């Protein structure tokens, strides 16, 4: 036992042995890593390799041949692709403009509550919808907005206004998408921001108050700089999947609003899985993946250069 301990101590004193020795010494660690590595190779890197199918006519038939860029030519000439692209961009912009600032605002307001108990209660309650599936959230909104029994239309009726068919009206459907997104996700974001806000030293506020700083300027000069790294992280995470919007649309859309809600992922699903042109569907996937990556890298570059903060 004693010799083993001294041997270990020696190895710790000279951390850089030969590679083989280090691997042997870390055999337990590496064994713990292996299942995860296999998973990443099979379910992530193999799917990256699978993107090469977008240069083939892969489908449900037997033979597969290389078709070069023909899938992309077809893609860029297709009107329904551009419609899906436009819808994705519009819904993503709605997301960034209307959803993204919301949890920050809510967190700032929660932070102003005096009692710890009410802070906790608000966070507990608004976090709940985050755990619901889109099917559940979709149903909640069907109930709320139903033309016959929904509470929103009952209020409209009592105000003498016309009934609105929110779920099947092309003018309203995207607004319903973003409102339900806010309802489901705001608590998640708010709780993360509140956690970051709690790291601000209260003495900073006291000191700034003595210097005659108003509440508004405290938010501007103390609170926002504190949560800036979190805001940037959340923005980048948001951008990395904003174009991938899929579940929500799959659950909530219906034939009467296809024109305003068909997004790139649903388009790819229809062309690939339902029609059977898997190669063509993969071309759409590759397009979305690359555009998302560029979006994240670009934003990261901007934030690195102008805000001196980045996550990558």
């Amino acid at each position: 036992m004693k010799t083993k301990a001294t041997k270990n101590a020696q190895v710790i004193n000279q951390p850089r042995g030969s590679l083989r020795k280090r691997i042997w010494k870390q055999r337990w660690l590496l064994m713990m890593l292996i299942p995860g590595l296999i998973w990443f190779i099979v379910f992530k890197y193999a799917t990256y390799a699978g993107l090469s199918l977008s240069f083939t006519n892969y489908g449900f038939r037997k033979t597969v041949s290389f078709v070069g860029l023909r899938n992309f030519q077809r893609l860029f000439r297709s009107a329904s692709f551009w419609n899906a692209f436009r819808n994705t961009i519009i819904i993503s912009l709605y997301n960034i403009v209307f959803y993204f600032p919301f949890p920050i605002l809510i967190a700032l307001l929660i932070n102003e509550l005096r009692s710890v108990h009410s802070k906790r209660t608000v966070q507990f309650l608004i976090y709940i919808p985050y755990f619901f599936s889109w099917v559940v959230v979709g149903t909640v909104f069907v109930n709320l907005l139903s033309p016959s029994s929904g509470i929103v239309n009952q209020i409209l009726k009592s105000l003498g206004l016309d009934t609105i068919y929110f779920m099947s009206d092309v003018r309203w459907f995207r607004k319903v998408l973003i409102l339900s997104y806010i309802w489901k996700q705001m608590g998640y974001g708010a709780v993360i921001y509140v956690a970051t806000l709690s790291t601000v030293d209260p003495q900073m506020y006291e000191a700034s108050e003595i210097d005659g700083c108003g509440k508004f300027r405290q938010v501007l000069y103390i609170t926002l700089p504190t949560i800036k790294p979190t805001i940037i992280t959340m923005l980048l995470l948001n951008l990395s999947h904003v174009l991938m919007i899929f579940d929500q649309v799959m659950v909530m859309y219906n034939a009467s609003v296809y024109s305003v809600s068909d997004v790139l992922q649903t388009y790819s699903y229809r062309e690939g899985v339902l029609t059977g042109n898997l190669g063509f569907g993969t071309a759409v996937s590759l397009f979305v993946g690359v555009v998302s990556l560029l979006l994240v890298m670009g934003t990261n570059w901007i934030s690195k250069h102008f805000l001196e903060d980045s996550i990558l």
Partner: protein
Amino acid sequence: MSRTVNSNVIKESAARKVFRVFNVLFLTLVCFIVVIPIWNVLITSVAEDKDVMGGVYLIIPKSFTLKSYARVLNSGYMRGFWNSLFIAGVGTVVAMLITVPMGYALAQRKLVARNFFMKMVSLTLVFDAGIMPLYVLIRTLGLIDNSWSLILPFAVSTFNLIIVKNFMMSIPESFVESASLDGCNDLMALVWIVLPMSVPILAAVTLFYFVSFWNRYTEAVMFINNSARYTLQVMLRALIYQSDGSLGEGNIVYENTKMAVMVLGMLPVMIIYPFVQRHFVSGLMLGGVKE
């Protein structure tokens, strides 16, 4: 001089009082907007048939009966419930068994080729191949119509892996080092020292995994065509959006019965959430997805 200062203080505090009142009112309103639709689902599910007919949005309970739940318990929706529970239960266990050891290994600064492994993992956070290549992979592996197609591809979430890794990095290295001097190997150090210190993050990540497996919809639609293997979410979507008549008398499914299926769809998550919630703030400081 002193009077102006005083009046300033009084004016300031009056303005703040108004702000505080509005703040409380606003946040109360937000809470109501979150809670009322959920409340509506719950009380609709326990209402009598006659109270849910004719287009009402229940906010005040009118009746209490478990009849809808009795109908659901004897319906095909229970099979969906068990299918979903199997996927979520087994999926969460598999996910934790892969994620936790990997997170621990990546948290060790001495790990061979750690930078390479971290890059390999982080890339998947910003680049996603999308749904098509995954569908092709599942077909190639012959997993269509198999419940494992909803478990294996989602057994690791890069995001969860990174928060586990970051949490474990915040545990002082001296704990693990002193254990290794006592003759503990890395596996023993993980089990006996690191895991007991990581309860908050493990609780949060377990819930996140469970929720992600339980709620999955699109992939369930794509990978499972055999109706005996449908998950509850897929059946619920069909029930709400296309009226099908398997639950009601004749072809009518009453709103209360639909809402009872909804409650079934939210049930496991709502049972776990209150127990895990207190770990969230300590477990989820996002401060770093940053490496």
